């Protein structure tokens, strides 16, 4: 497969930036990450601490690999999987109609059903886009400026 090395590079860098930023923020506020996981009520409460600490590490690890272009195929695949996980979490909360306020979505909190729908849709669309980038890299792992020669 020939691949599209320039697009691949762009995909790698965008995903790397997103993952490093998201992971970095969570590392600095580990209680926030744990609380957000609890609020989604998808996982048992006992898992929340481990996930709260483990998730940002995974994000940073994947972000670093994508940044330098190492194990790109696997990193792309795992990133895509991670994004799907977030989409599932948001969809689950949306479907169950929770009036949760965890500050997860930042300012401008319109918590009416229409406001929530708008926010959740935006979040899901964004994460699906990132999932697409990860999947792209899984299919076409050859990219410019990577440590891997492929």
């Amino acid at each position, binding site marked *: 497969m020939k691949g599209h090395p320039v697009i691949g590079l762009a995909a790698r860098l965008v995903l790397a930036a997103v993952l490093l930023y998201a992971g970095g923020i969570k590392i600095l*506020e*580990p209680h926030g990450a744990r609380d957000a996981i609890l609020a989604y009520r998808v996982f048992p409460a006992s898992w929340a601490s481990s996930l709260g600490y483990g998730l940002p590490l995974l994000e940073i690890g994947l972000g670093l690999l994508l940044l330098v272009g190492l194990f790109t195929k696997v990193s792309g695949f795992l990133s895509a999987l991670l994004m799907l996980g977030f989409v599932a979490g948001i969809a689950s909360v949306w479907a169950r109609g929770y009036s949760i306020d965890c*500050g997860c979505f930042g*300012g401008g909190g319109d918590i009416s059903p229409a406001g929530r729908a708008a926010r959740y849709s935006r979040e899901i669309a964004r994460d699906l886009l990132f999932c697409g980038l990860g999947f792209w890299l899984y299919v076409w792992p050859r990219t410019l400026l990577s440590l*891997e020669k492929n």
Partner: protein
Amino acid sequence: MGKESAKAAKAAAEKVRAQANAQERARERKIRLIGAIVVLVIMGGLLAIPLISGKNKGPDTSATAALPQGVTKDTYGVKIGSAWNAANADTIPTFDVWEDFQCPACADMESKSGAKILELAAAGKVRLQWRPTIFLDSNLQAQNTANNKPNSSMQATLAFGCAVDQDAAQAFHSALFAAQPAEGKGYNNADLTAVAQVAGITGQSLTTFTDCLTKKTYESWVNNSFDLFSKEGHSSTPTGILNGTELQAGVLFDPVKLEQAITDATKK
């Protein structure tokens, strides 16, 4: 060049190519191995950060930790209503309401059910306890700081504690949620003092209130209450707990259903 030497040259060239390929592959393996180790080491180092920061936020259990009037160390909650002192208090359902003053969902709940809750508390039908949490301070840190009003949940709850001392708990609580800014905009001391005045705190009371607020007299109370919020397994607000059972949002936000739930809890 003869056929045999051509073959030999070809074989030699292939051997060189094969060696180059093998070296290339070995080099790539080395890069992958080193890269993986570096990433793992970085991740391991980062693991230390949450573990270290987790140790700093312990509760202040010193005997001198100040508490607003009427607040006790078992729940750090602000008790509202006559039921607490009733002779048959044990038969009256307890109702803990966890709120963060920056939480729009809490303001929404207050606008819908707040009056009914206070009415039931005043009538002695429920033992109401407002339990403050400040988890939004970390979630809204960026927005609060951008608006120059850092740690707004802490500030607002400090003010609430000071208002409790001035016998204005209910008025301040209502006025604060009524004046709640857009999520993330936050409160500073000037905002909170204005709320206190709306709540009827004036003159000498206002001076004491302002003093209490600027000195952060009840900082350890707020941190202790927040600590219990996490310890008791909560992560979002508003959380309403009636006689130990968490209420669904559909009930908490509906004054009719809420009153029914409280009545049902009383029959038991």
